[in-house]
């Protein structure tokens, strides 16, 4: 392995430490979020589980295990030079697509909240192939769009069509689950990568238009299932579906709002402890922060997430090759859209979809994917120009 690394002329010294060459601020921001997330997951589940005679640390333990595995994966991701990843890209992509096909097979995939997004594994574990698919699409299209077959600044139409095809298959499969949140995040990320790759503006504008048109047609023709229409309606009119999605959104907003400036204090939120917001350790984890940490604590979370994004932009700029830039751009877009969709949904700015909040929500697949994403950023950072 060291032979690969030594061939890298731009490599920063890795020295003796595992962490040498990593962006320290990025690392610190991620670490901060992981710690806060762990506390929030514990706060979201402790009282309810002990009140119902279950292990109050059930989620805490599993969350910590997920973080440990995720950190190991992230560290693993940084070891191999990202440029060598290109060679494995088709396999990673294929693996993601395969997983997405598997979830749709009855008996293999399991349905949670109306979406067939999970593959059940032994010992009560589940994986969510869509999370792996995000990474494979980012790496895949970044590779296709950064390889110049001709001497030009912008990718050829051929490259763009190839890239779109690579993205389209997994997106269509996720659409079948259906997981609209993930479809939105991936599609938006693909468009962002295209924009940074130098693709002509008409492509970017065309794709955005297509996405809007697709959304309208899907809602009208009933490709989107009933419950998703309800979620959209309840976004527009929170009173439309009082017991279902409308209830969740209302409760979420009340819970966040009741936190006030300083919050009730960790573990002391009556809304959280009463579990008035469903899914509060996963998709609605931000409500726990809102209630118990208040505006001050919740702002810290958003600022930490912003820090990660801003550092990542720096890494993207300083990358030695377009591939690194595009991979970073893809990861940034993924995080940014997912954060905005998740927190926006909690605060009533976005319609309700089932996407977790990066680094904070409970959930293995998501945690692994997010930390692998960080691994990719650190990988590019470690191999950029001094």
């Amino acid at each position, binding site marked *: 392995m060291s032979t690969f690394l030594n061939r890298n002329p731009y490599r920063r010294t890795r020295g003796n430490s595992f962490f040498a060459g990593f962006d320290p601020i990025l690392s610190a921001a991620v670490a901060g979020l992981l710690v806060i997330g762990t506390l929030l997951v514990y706060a979201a589940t402790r*009282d*309810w589980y002990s*009140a119902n005679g279950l292990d109050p640390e059930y989620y805490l333990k599993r969350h910590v295990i997920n973080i440990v595995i995720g950190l190991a994966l992230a560290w693993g991701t940084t070891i191999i030079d990202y440029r060598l990843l290109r060679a494995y890209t088709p396999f990673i992509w294929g693996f993601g697509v395969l997983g997405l096909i598997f979830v749709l097979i009855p008996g293999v995939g399991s349905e949670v909240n109306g979406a067939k997004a999970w593959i059940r594994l032994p010992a009560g574990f589940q994986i969510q192939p869509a999370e792996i698919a995000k990474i494979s699409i980012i790496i895949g299209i970044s590779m296709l769009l950064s390889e110049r077959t001709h001497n030009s*600044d*912008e990718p050829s139409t051929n490259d763009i069509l190839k890239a779109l095809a690579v993205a389209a298959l997994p997106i269509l499969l996720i659409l079948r689950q259906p997981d609209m949140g993930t479809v939105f995040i991936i599609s938006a990320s693909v468009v*962002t990568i295209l*924009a*940074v*790759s*130098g693709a002509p503006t008409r492509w970017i504008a065309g794709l955005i238009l297509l996405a809007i048109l697709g959304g309208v047609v899907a809602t009208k023709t009933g490709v989107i299932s009933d419950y998703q229409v309800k979620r959209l309606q309840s976004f527009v009119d929170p009173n439309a579906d009082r017991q279902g999605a409308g209830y969740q959104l209302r*409760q979420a*907003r*009340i*819970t*966040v*709002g*009741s*936190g*006030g*400036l300083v919050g009730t204090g960790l573990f002391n939120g*009556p*809304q959280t*402890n*009463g*579990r*008035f917001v*469903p899914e509060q350790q996963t998709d609605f984890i931000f409500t726990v922060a*809102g209630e118990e940490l*208040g*505006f001050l604590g*919740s*702002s810290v979370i*958003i600022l930490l*997430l*912003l820090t990660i*994004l*801003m550092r990542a*932009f720096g890494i*993207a*700029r300083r*990358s030695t090759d*377009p591939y690194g*830039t595009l991979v970073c*751009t893809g990861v*940034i*877009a993924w995080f*940014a859209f997912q*954060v*905005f969709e998740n*927190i*926006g949904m909690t*605060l*009533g*700015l976005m319609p309700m979809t089932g996407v977790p909040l990066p680094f904070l929500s409970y959930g293995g697949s998501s945690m692994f994917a997010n930390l692998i994403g960080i691994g990719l950023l650190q990988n590019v950072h470690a191999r950029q120009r001094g």
Partner: protein
Amino acid sequence: MNQRSRLSLLVIQIFFASLMVALLGRLFYLQVAAGPIYRDAALSIQSRDVVTPANRGFIVDSSGVPLALSKVALAVTVDRTTIDKLPDKGVAVLANLVNLLGLEYSDVWQRTRLCGELPRGQRAGCWTGSRFQPIPITKSADPAIALRIVERSDRFPGISATPIAIRSYPETLGVTGSHVLGYVGPLTEADLAGANGRTYFRSESIGKAGLEIKYDEYLRGVPGIKTFIVDRKEAVTSTTQNTKPVAGKHLVTSLDVRLQAASEKALGEAVKRARSMGFPADGGAAVVMDVRNGQVLSLASYPSFDPNAFERGLTVKEAQALYSEKTGVPALNRALQGLYAPASTFKVVSVMAAKDAGYDLNKSYSCPAEVQVGTRAFQNFESKAQGTISMKKAIAISCDTIWYQIAYDEWLRDGGLKPKSNPNDYFSKAAESFQISEKTGVDLPSESTGRLVNREWKKSWYAENKDFYCNYKDRATKAQQTAFLLQLARENCVDGDKLRGGDAVNFSIGQGDTVITPIKLAQMYAAIANGGTIWQPTIAKAILTQEGKVIKQFEPKKLGQISADAATIEFLHDALHEVTLTGTSAGLFANFPVPTAGKTGTAQVFGRNLNGSAKSDTSWYASFAPERNPRYAVVMMVSQGGYGASTSGAGVRQIYETLFGVQGNVVKPELALFPKGKPPIKLPRISPATKPAPSILNPAKAEKKMAVAKR
């Protein structure tokens, strides 16, 4: 990286940064700007206030015998949060339960619904409290049955039996006292909205009638509040006791439980007696008042109702019966809500008027069979001529024609239909001095105001009814178009605004449009008895704390003085005594060992009953006793009860028997209600165990007590 990519990256960076700033902005709005609103919303989601009602204070009689108590009873309760989770929402459980308890399923179903769950107009009997409180479906469960329910919690999920404090009316000596005491019940929406300026909690009980509502603010105490913090499944996660309930204050009344029992019994028997004579006797009232201070010693109305029925849980049928004409509207307190023509009892007013007009009360006057007034002849009672008799005798035998003559002469002297600019109006002025057209001010709700026919009233009546009588043929129903009524309508149209000869004549014997309540007549006779002072009738004497400390005493209140001079009052005492010796009630009172004074009244009533029969006369007896130094005024009225003496007079005698301890025609001092003939002034000590002292109604105890004393 080329220039375009760099630019794109920068644009995207700014875009993403602004997305995060947008989140921060929205977060600031929700948490800081709108935070208080959301905090309130969250609080209403999480917390459930449950009210623990305070024990109500007692209502006791003047010697401390409880009339209303807080009693511990066994309630069978339904927990809605449990039964709602059953697959059939608890239908089977409730069905089993009603079988066991012998209740109606529909009543129980209704009682366990929150009022908000039911459509408007179908909420009678619904549960006004919260879902988190056990809802009582009966408050008088048999302990054996309750035990079976509690033991079989698998068959009766969510059902439990708990001891609770309920209002209980002990019915000592058979007393119901329902019209004086009232009853308690759940709050109405109007109460909750603060209609009477107080704040209440749902599920609290409130006085609904009588003393219970009048003195509710003292009796009810302060309920305790417990706040439950609940989770999404409505399971309770924590509890805080915000305030503990504070028991209500006790109310000491001037009532005497033995006299109240005697009054109710005498009234009931008077009604029976009247019915046995063929009169409908659809209702009645009896009032006993202390003439020295206006304190009410007993107050009864017939028909009565069971005050304990409300706490037992009123069935729909019972609730309807309370206000039904067929059952005689038991909810009506005829003693102060019923308005009746006072008939001959009103002649005390005519005596005063005659005296004021210059007639010598000690002279003799003619009592013919009839008196011609204008075109109409007014008959004496039973059209009997009595010759020339003294005025005292005229009162005793209740001659009407002597008053017709005087009233008509005075009316003519005042100008007749063309009245003088300053008429004397001796009759209406004498009546006005009794404050006929004002309430007595008794401390019970919903008292009716009497009606006094004077020139003023005629004018206002005419303004309201002119149109009807002047267009009688079009406005009146077919049944109302008899020759007599048509004639009457014509007269009313022409000079209905004037006090006519007929009005003046009717007025002199308490007939016509003048009507009063029984308690008003008691107040009037009390005034005559005490030398002329009009006292405000009062029932409340004092408010005591649970520890027995007096926090409020109700002082007697003088409302005015009647216009009669001492000589007239003396004449009235003498004449009214004569009634009981040789007059209309002599058969009842001539041999009564305590000399009394009284007046019978038999009032004609116009109109028809539901079955079409003409209404029978109102029977009155108004009296005071002892004849020397009177202390008590007693009035009984039986509506459609026939003659004054035989129906009501006999009833009043029964009340006096208890009051003075008369057995046969002998006074037994040890059975008299009040030593030395004076109601107690000292406030009693309050104990739920206080028993009434011996009287005619409960003499056995007296003998026992004396036997113990001898040993």
